[in-house]
């Protein structure tokens, strides 16, 4: 049995406003546990960076309180908070060498010369940059700069590491590689990470928990699996991954399953997590990979006829756009196979999905 997680950071009823009218962060209650990798995910302007800045001490909290180890951070200046930060553009000191950059926090903490050398070398080895001690930041590639920033934020063993879109400036391939590396570092060192990103793929790959933000409010907090498979509302469903959504009205309820009648009269059977009443308006969420073409299994309770509109070849899978239930923008991801490769626009097919993969959500 896992031990009870120890809460490191606690946001209690935190609000933030710049103009006194609109709250960019609203009613924030969130706990970050020691050793976990928590990602704040949301579109730009959703308030996630503001949360990080408040935690770091660079933005004032309008209302509520943030506590670290159950001690309020109010009036604690940033330089006494002991948090490592990896900035969006790294904020490496351009006039200092790699070594001096990484040594900076240790110098501030009056570590001995030999301790500094030892710790910096260990940190640089950890991020695979040994031997680049004397380079200046502008002599490094983007990925190397990223690693220096990481080493600098980790070398003084901070309570928590904050990362604000740290991979935003890298190209796709490098970004994916760094995601894995950061994940591995987290697992090896067991540090606590608060990570901000707008890239949902990044959030899903790296995090222990994801907090999805929109318009200053947390929409859902949960493991990557939870937020993907069991979105709490239509925003989460649409924001994370690709999603087919159908609008309709609840016709009957039996246990956790209910029947929803769509606008064109078709009835879809789906699973409802939250209790709903008959006659409520509802939005159905169905992931494209759960929509099966030519289903043969028995548990596919929803079956419809559909016309293929477009097939786009993606190598490992085909992306098929279908016209069905009175719409023509329903997407199915079909694994590459003789059947899906042979599909042609205009062809009529049978499609279906299991009710357990289709969720009933409240309309936005």
């Amino acid at each position, binding site marked *: 049995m896992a031990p009870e997680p120890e809460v490191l950071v606690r946001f209690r009823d935190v609000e933030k406003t710049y103009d006194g009218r609109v709250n960019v962060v609203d009613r924030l209650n969130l706990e970050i546990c020691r050793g976990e990798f928590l990602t704040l995910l949301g579109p730009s302007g959703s308030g996630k960076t503001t949360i990080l800045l408040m935690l770091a*001490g*660079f*933005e004032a909290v309008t209302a509520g309180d943030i506590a670290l180890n159950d001690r309020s951070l109010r009036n604690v*200046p*940033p330089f006494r908070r002991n948090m490592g930060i990896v900035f969006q553009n790294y904020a490496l000191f351009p006039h200092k060498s790699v070594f001096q950059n990484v040594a900076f926090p240790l110098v501030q903490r009056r570590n001995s010369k030999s301790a500094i050398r030892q710790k910096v070398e260990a940190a640089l080895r950890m991020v695979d940059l040994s031997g680049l001690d004397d380079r200046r930041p502008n002599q490094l590639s983007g990925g190397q700069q990223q690693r220096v920033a990481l080493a600098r934020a980790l070398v003084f063993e901070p309570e928590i590491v904050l990362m604000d879109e740290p991979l935003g400036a890298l190209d796709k391939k490098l970004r994916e590689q760094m995601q894995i590396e950061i994940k591995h570092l987290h697992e090896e060192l067991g540090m606590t990470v608060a990570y901000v990103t707008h890239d949902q793929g990044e959030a899903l790959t790296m995090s222990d928990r994801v907090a999805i933000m929109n318009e200053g409010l947390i929409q859902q907090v949960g493991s990557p699996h939870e937020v993907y498979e069991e979105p709490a509302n239509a925003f989460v469903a649409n924001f994370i991954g690709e999603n087919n959504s159908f609008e309709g009205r609840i016709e009957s309820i039996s246990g956790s399953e209910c029947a929803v009648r769509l606008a064109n009269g078709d009835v879809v059977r789906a699973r409802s997590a939250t209790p709903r009443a008959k006659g409520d308006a509802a939005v159905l969420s169905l992931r494209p990979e759960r929509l099966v073409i030519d289903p043969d299994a028995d548990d596919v309770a929803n079956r419809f006829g559909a016309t293929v509109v477009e097939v786009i070849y993606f190598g490992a899978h085909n992306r098929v756009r279908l016209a069905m239930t009175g719409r023509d923008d329903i997407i199915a991801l079909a694994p590459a196979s003789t059947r899906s490769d042979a599909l042609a626009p205009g062809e009529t097919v049978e499609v279906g999905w299991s009710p357990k993969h289709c969720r009933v959500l409240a309309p936005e």
Partner: protein
Amino acid sequence: MAMPVNATRGQHVWYWCLRLFCGFGFVFLIGPIIVIVPISFSSGSFLSYPLPGFSMRWYDAVVEPFPWMFALENSLIVAVTVTIIATALGTLAAYGLTRADFPGKPFVFGLLISPLAVPLVITALGLYFFFARVGLVQTHIGLIIAHVVLAVPFVVITVSATLKGFDWNLVRAAESLGARPLAAFFQVTLPLILPGVLAGAVFAFVTSLDEVIVALFVSGPAQLTLPRQLFTGLRDQVDPSIVAIATILIAFSIALLVVVELLQWRSSRQRSARTD
């Protein structure tokens, strides 16, 4: 600088000390220029406060034909001519400097802007000796040539800077659409770099209008300019009519500042519009 969030007591103290200190700095910079303005409207002839009363008598002195209006006329004739010549020569050179490479280009650029680096007295001395031998001392032409030397670097610098941000594909586009090089320059390049050219022209105009050292060396009584008359007046007898002319010049520099700010704003907007 915004007060840091979660500031310590020491930071609070520093924050206010810095503001106070800088406040004095800004007062020091702007105060003298503002404080002399009301004196020009004084009815008395003391150059201090409190003012005995309001009058325009010193402005009446300023609009007398001699010396101020005569000096103003000379200054304007010289400055306008200098602006036209310097802008034309400078723009042409800046265009050549940015359009293609040729051997010794950095040296040529350095030479063209070198009048900025040489102390004015030395330039004045060199020009004085030169003009003395070719008979241009105490002539309008001599003064104009001298001021073009001093003004042209500003045009070269501003126009070159504007051309550096210029998208040469626009010229290629114009030429591919059938425009001859000259037509492409006048219909595409020039309108787009116009803010830079105008800013250079303003710099050139101000340089000439404000120049006194070279004027003291190479010009005579017939080429009396405004700064020279100011210099003489300040050396011999300071009276409020000098303050009145200074006030007019301050109003003029405010107008120029506004013009240049607008030009820079326009060219930066154009640049950002292109990248959007």
